[in-house]
């Protein structure tokens, strides 16, 4: 069925698949998916980046495997198989982070295991990878993952700059910096997240209004030209 639908529209190119998640359908700021790690681990830019990379890896690997097996998986048991696949890669990530850095592992805490419950991952597996060939599915997943990482670093960067006076651990203000304690506490996550969402919705509304105005102009132009033609 997916074949018949996609044959009606031109299938998106691999590059379009990749950039979709970066900006146009950014998982955090546009689709508002995966809020749990977004709010919980973005205390510093480094934590955000690590969390983003871990999620990107799980997302890309799961989507690749789901897409590869999509013709073999009967729809009756698809959720079970997707979750098994996702849980596998979360476990792999968990092991890998323990081997890379124990400090990072402690900083991210239970949120590594909780990637398995990140609705972004299951959502993309179900909505995209299950009906797309492996290369496109993986590219789209990497794009989505990088978009997720970008948003997390944007939130974590602001929280670290205001909460600790540093960016990726590099002090920016010298030793007399006054930390904004609220930024490293949970409310800080909500404030910064809300601030970015506000900015994005304002920008989106502006561009929407511009597009509307342009289309109205175009329609007017068409009308006048049509009228001229008629005359």
């Amino acid at each position, binding site marked *: *069925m997916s074949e*018949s*639908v996609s044959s009606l529209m031109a299938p998106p190119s691999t590059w379009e698949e990749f950039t979709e998640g970066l900006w146009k359908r950014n998982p955090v700021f546009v689709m508002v998916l995966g809020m749990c790690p977004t709010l919980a681990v973005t205390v510093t830019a480094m934590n955000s980046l690590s969390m983003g990379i871990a999620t990107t890896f799980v997302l890309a690997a799961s989507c690749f*495997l789901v897409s590869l*097996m999509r013709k*073999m*998986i*009967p*729809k*009756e*048991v698809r959720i*079970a*198989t997707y979750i*098994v*696949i996702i*849980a*596998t*890669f979360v*476990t*792999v990530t968990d*092991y*890998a982070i*323990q*081997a*890379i*850095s*124990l*400090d990072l592992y*402690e900083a991210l805490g239970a949120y590594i295991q909780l990637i398995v419950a990140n609705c972004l991952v299951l959502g993309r597996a179900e909505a995209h990878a299950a009906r797309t060939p492996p290369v496109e599915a993986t590219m789209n997943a990497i794009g989505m993952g990088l978009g997720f990482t970008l948003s997390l670093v944007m939130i974590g960067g602001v929280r670290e700059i205001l*909460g*600790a006076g540093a960016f990726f651990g590099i002090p920016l203000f010298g030793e007399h910096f006054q*930390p904004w*304690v609220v930024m*490293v*506490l949970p409310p800080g996550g909500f404030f910064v997240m809300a601030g970015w969402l506000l900015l994005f919705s304002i920008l989106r509304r502006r561009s929407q209004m511009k597009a509307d105005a342009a289309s109205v102009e175009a329609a007017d132009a068409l009308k006048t030209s049509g009228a001229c033609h008629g005359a």
Partner: protein
Amino acid sequence: MSAPDTTSQPQETDALAHATPTFTLLRALSVVSAVCGLIIVASYLLTLDRAKDNRRLASERAVVKVLPNAKIVKPFLALANGDIVPAGEGDPPSGAIRFYAAYDEKGRLDGIAAEGAAKGYADIVRVMFGYRKDCQCIVGIGVVSMRETPGIGDKILTDKDFLANFNALDVRLNDELTALANEVKVVKHGTKTEKWQIDAISGTTITSRAVGKGINEAAQVLLPRLVPKLDRLEKP
């Protein structure tokens, strides 16, 4: 769903008539499980050594922080029946307390490091403390993990007056060697009079108390088991 009505009708009946056979379901699930199982086991084996090394290094680092002369660190368990055994793999038996024996470069026992934990303001505060038998006192502390309010709770890491409490915090045992002679106690800022008291940081009382309570509880249990058998640990 977006397909025209005329085609969707036969498709549905088609799906009902040809429900996926049980064998296909089982085959799909087994293949997926087998593939996933392989991936998990492979990555486990690949990362096992590194992860173990990291864990050992992390606890050694924590021990060196409280006993700076330590060159070799060995983990032990003080069992509930009073035995001291080297700590092995897996979960320790119930009632056992983990501690580290630290040896200096000449292989002599420098001191003992152990962990204490107590509820702070936000969450459990876990501290590592170093113990030396010649003074029967605690000679340094380091925080293993905490989630206290930054700027307030984390003064226990930086406040010089507070850290000075642990230059020689008296934890000698009573004559029967059953408990500490004097309970380690956190007192209001500026009212420390005895060697076994901890002068709290003003404004950070709850976290200060958690540090004292964690040390007291761990020392009360560990030291009576450990001190009589300390000679056995002399050589690494």
